């Protein structure tokens, strides 16, 4: 295995986005220099006495369209790559990355979700008086991390991917510097994340110690010939903990409500959709692509453990979501319960095999788009005159009258989260549960999942009831954000959610074709 220039072509999406990120960073930096003379100081509300230098609103408006163009370009490259890909997967960079349809599909979903998410960022940042030019560069860099993670063929690249992705996410979470909640969220996420990274790297070290390699294929070969040693076993479990943390699976979820709630809304949407998709893809690749022996071996018990993680995530996520009065936090808990449903799919992968992968990918895609749509509406509903987000249920009362379009789109998104036809969420659950039913032993797990989705309907419908059937507060100080880009983004993602629910055939065919 030597370095080959064709590797560069094979990893074009990654290279393209890396360059894009650097360009965006430079654009941002230079616009700052150019504007420094005209920079003026905005008076902040009375509570925060310090004055922060804020560039005039709108000075970096072009960053979002440029980013959008880059992301669409990346999407085009991905589509082109899928078309030209050979049937078998291609390993590049001396076995560090692997290019296959599975990876490209997930990357495509991530890039598309990011593109649909960032369009609401400029208006959001303007409304909340947070100009943060690095935003777009960080999103793009986090996407690079996701690509590495999804295409990883080596434990080193797994770690590299996770860390690149996470570093971007840490900073993005804290990017709303004036908001204490944002900073708190970033701090917590970072502290626990750093700790878990330690566990992760320790797990990798243990696996390396036992097998003397970090290449996933070699690990698989050695584990199959020698059998699993205890230390290998611990290493693998630590790896699982690392992933479970990034995915927000109970009991490694505790950062998630604080972080998703505190982070700027477009960032929450980005994290809930893209990081979840990339993380699950990485986990699937680890489990199914390289450790099928472990997958089929009941004595290592990972299906057993994962099914309990699934049950805990679904149940605790839903129970906590019911109690929430804050819609953003409710959606955060809902994302924990969705991680649980996805875990059911991962368990099905272990017991049913390849047949479950397509449905799992369908669920990932449908969830990612639905989250982007719902978080878009959360941004849309806007803030009060102090720049605080309006995310209380009482703030949303009567939204159906004030902002009928926002209410309608949110309704569709919520129905999709709850799994109602004719939305993507329905077929996501339907295909997933159907695939899992291929193994009768999983029936109990499916029943738990179905019971949970019934419970979840309660809190999704509660928002709909508030929007349509409750009288608006007498003094609606809410200022909805008026931004065409944001509205178009939300509309497009909602339409996709509907299209996937009405014509699920094409996507499920695409998912089924996304093989290793």
């Amino acid at each position, binding site marked *: 295995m030597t370095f080959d220039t064709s590797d560069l072509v094979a990893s074009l999406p990654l290279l393209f986005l890396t360059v894009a990120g650097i360009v965006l960073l430079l654009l941002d930096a230079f616009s700052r220099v150019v504007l420094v003379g005209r920079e003026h100081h905005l008076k902040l509300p009375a509570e925060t006495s310090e004055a922060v230098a804020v560039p005039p609103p709108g000075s970096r408006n072009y960053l979002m369209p440029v980013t959008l163009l880059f992301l669409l370009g990346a999407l085009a490259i991905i589509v082109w790559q899928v078309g030209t890909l050979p049937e078998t997967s291609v390993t590049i960079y001396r076995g560090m990355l692997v290019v296959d349809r599975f990876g490209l599909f997930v990357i495509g979903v991530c890039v598309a979700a990011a593109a649909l998410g960032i369009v609401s960022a400029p208006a959001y940042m303007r409304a909340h008086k947070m100009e943060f030019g690095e935003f777009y560069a960080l999103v793009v860099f986090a996407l690079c991390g996701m690509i590495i993670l999804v295409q990883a063929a080596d434990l080193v690249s797994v770690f590299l991917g996770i860390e690149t992705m996470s570093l971007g996410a840490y900073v993005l979470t804290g990017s709303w510097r004036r908001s204490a909640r944002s900073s708190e969220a970033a*701090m*917590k996420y970072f*502290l*626990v994340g750093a*700790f*878990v990274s330690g*566990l992760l790297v320790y797990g990798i070290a243990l696996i390396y110690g036992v097998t003397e390699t970090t290449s996933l294929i070699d690990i698989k070969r050695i584990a199959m010939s020698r*059998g699993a040693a*205890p230390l290998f*076993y*611990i290493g693998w*479990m*630590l790896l*699982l*903990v690392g992933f*479970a*943390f990034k995915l927000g699976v*109970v*009991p*490694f979820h*505790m*950062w998630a*409500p*604080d972080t998703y709630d505190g982070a700027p809304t477009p960032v929450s949407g980005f994290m809930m959709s893209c990081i979840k998709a990339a993380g699950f893809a990485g986990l699937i690749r680890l489990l199914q692509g390289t450790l099928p022996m472990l997958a*089929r*071996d*009941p*004595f*290592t*018990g*990972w299906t*057993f*453990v994962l099914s*309990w*993680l699934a049950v805990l995530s679904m149940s*605790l996520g839903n*129970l*906590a979501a*019911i*109690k929430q009065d804050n819609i953003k936090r409710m959606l955060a808990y809902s994302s924990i319960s969705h991680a649980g449903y996805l875990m059911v799919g991962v368990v099905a992968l272990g017991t049913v095999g390849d047949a479950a992968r397509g449905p799992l990918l369908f669920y990932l895609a449908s969830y990612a788009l639905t989250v982007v749509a719902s978080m878009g509406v959360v941004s849309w509903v806007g803030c009060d005159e102090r720049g605080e987000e309006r995310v209380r249920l009482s703030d949303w009362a009567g939204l159906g009258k004030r902002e009928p379009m926002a209410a309608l789109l949110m309704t569709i998104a919520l129905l999709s989260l709850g799994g109602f036809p004719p939305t993507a969420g329905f077929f996501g659950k*339907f295909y997933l549960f*159907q695939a899992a039913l291929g193994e009768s032993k999983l029936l109990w797990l499916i029943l738990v999942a179905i019971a949970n989705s019934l*419970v979840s309907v309660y809190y999704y419908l509660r928002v709909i009831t508030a929007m349509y059937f409750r009288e608006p507060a007498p003094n609606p100080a809410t200022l909805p954000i008026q931004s065409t880009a944001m509205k178009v983004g939300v509309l497009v993602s909602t339409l996709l959610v509907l299209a996937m629910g009405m*014509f*699920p*055939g*094409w996507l*499920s*065919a695409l998912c089924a074709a996304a093989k290793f």
Partner: protein
Amino acid sequence: MTENFPLYLIILLPLLGAALNLLFGRRFGNTFVSVVACSAVAGAALVATKAVLLVASELPARGALVDQLVSGDWIVAGDFKLQAGLMLDRLSSVMVMVVTWIALLIHIYATGYMEHEPDFARFFGYLNLFTGAMLILVLGDSLPVTFVGWEGVGLASYLLIGFWYHEDKNATAGRKAFIVNRIGDFGFLLGICLLFTVVGTVKYADFGSIAGRLMTPWWMGWPVGYWIAILLFVGCCGKSAQIPLYVWLPDAMAGPTPVSALIHAATMVTAGVYVVARCHTIFDTFPEAAKMTVAGVGALTALFAATIGIVQRDFKKVLAYSTVSQLGFMFVGVGTGAYTAGVFHLMTHAFFKAGLFLGAGSVMHAMGGEGDIVKMGGLGKHMPITRWTFFVYCLAIAGIVPFAGFFSKDAILAGTFAAEFRMSTQMTGAQAHLVALYPKLLWGMLATAALCTAFYMWRLYFVVFTGKFRGTEEQEHHLHESPMSMTLPLVMLAVGSVLAGLIGVPAVMTHGLPESLEHVLTFFNHWLSPAMVPASPEPHEHWLEWALMGGALTISLCGIGLAAALYRGGISETAENLKDKLGFAHKLLWNKYYVDELYDFLLVRPLRRVAVILWKVVDNLVIDLGLTKIGPYIVDSLGALVQRFQNGDVQRYIIAVMVGAAGILFGSTYWLAYQGIQGEVKVERRTVTLKLGDARMRPGQLIYAIDWDGDGKFDDTNVRFNSELKHEYGNAGQFKIVVEARDPVWNMVKRSDDWFFGASTPLSAKVE
């Protein structure tokens, strides 16, 4: 033989029109709405005509134009794969032409009729929506696609019946239509499901080859085809207003008159007839009991509704019962195997019945919304165009030669008279006799219905248009002919009512004519059969056919004569006397045989009582008190518990991570030991074999200690796991076996007699 054609345009245009009108119509005003609505339908009609001409000229008789709506599969669920596509063959051509062109005329008419309506845009939005859905129904290439349209027209019909929803009665009528239709739709859906499970296809294109599979015996000794046909027919009864589900149609007259003309006379209600013709393979399943049912229900409905029509006083109600009755004629046609005749009557009926309704609308427009015919009279001189077109329609529906209704009704009557139902070959003489007599009985019922039809239509004509005006002076002052937009469709439909019949003239009448003329005159007879549907039964002897024709004409003339005698120049005294003399019969008919009251007593009230019980007991007690109070309490406390751990303390988060990691390790090792103590015992005389764990377990992965005789002391210790462990017993008896498994890596120990997660089947051996 199929060919691709952008058929989607035909349904897209009206749906686009609906979207435009419903979303923006209010903003842009009535002219915009009229133009959008009419041009959408006109566009659809033009594309449809182009497509039908292609079918007629380019394709063989069995050919069809197809269009895939969704690339790949539309719905995939297990074995069930469904493509969504459109198909235009000779049968759907007839429907598409009728639907698009008559819809266009009625759209134009409605622009005049509804001009003072404040909700103009909503009306035309719904009307376009209906047209689109109806076109999906007739163009669908499989039953599920047809069902999408089927439900779509049901929705549009509901919306339009209750269009003036401010009045409670209209909203109630809409609901009634919807609910009664739901009953039918349920049967229809079951029929589709049964067809798929047993036969494995729901595509019309495959229907040619399913006859054999339909013969599979299924329930009560009948072939499955019979049951599918009956279930589908239940749906048709709902949509096409046949006994026992016809009750919604007379009430549906609460909608605006153009709606009655388009939906409840010309197009939607004929969907059932179309489906029976489309699925004739299923209805033809031997023995033909399903067809006997269809024809019987049709004849009964035809007679039943026609008698009710005799005494009704509301203009539109008379027409509504007339529609129910005429639909019965069509069902007799398709039920006796005279598919061509049934579909032909569907087409001609669309012309004159749409015309009759539009005429009624024109009259009511002039009368300021008054619908009681007793308060009309002598309108002929005020509105000549309406009068003379109405005259033509009445001739057509009464079946006077050469108007449209004559030929189509004659085809049905002749087909019915000559029909033979193929039943079991092992019938006794009496049974065979009854089956042979059945078509004659149907013919008798239809002939009587035809007499009633001629009578009530001409009664209507005479009472409304001749004699003296019986309304108020103010009404008389306002009488006027309707505007061009309304009279033009009336005239065009009248022309259609004259000419439409002339393409389906029976063969006996065209003998000796020039060949080209004969070809035109018998065009419809060859259009559908034998390519699309089996040929209609025909009397063997020419004299019989002539006689039947003459008989039908005589019957119609009698009906007209009777009506003229009683009502010409106004309601005569004889008519009033007759009404008093036949008091009981009149009351029975006036109250529509008390069917609504009967349904109310048998179905509605008991259901309501059950609903009240459910509300009081289940809803108030179980749900409100039990579930919504106790359930949330439990969920709430659990949620609060979860929240207590989520107190924002980062140290706690990290502890959770550590506990989770430990839990994973514990759980998976526990699982290993747990699997290790699961097993079964095999006894072979004194040798007992213990099979533990799973075949995939590796030797030495667990270390066992085994107590073979249940005395609490381990007999064997440090046994390496192997797939089978053997023990030789010294004496006979029942022994309890206890196994202790130890995972040497983690020192996790598990005993088979643990109360918590122990061995799922207790281990013991009975040694002889």
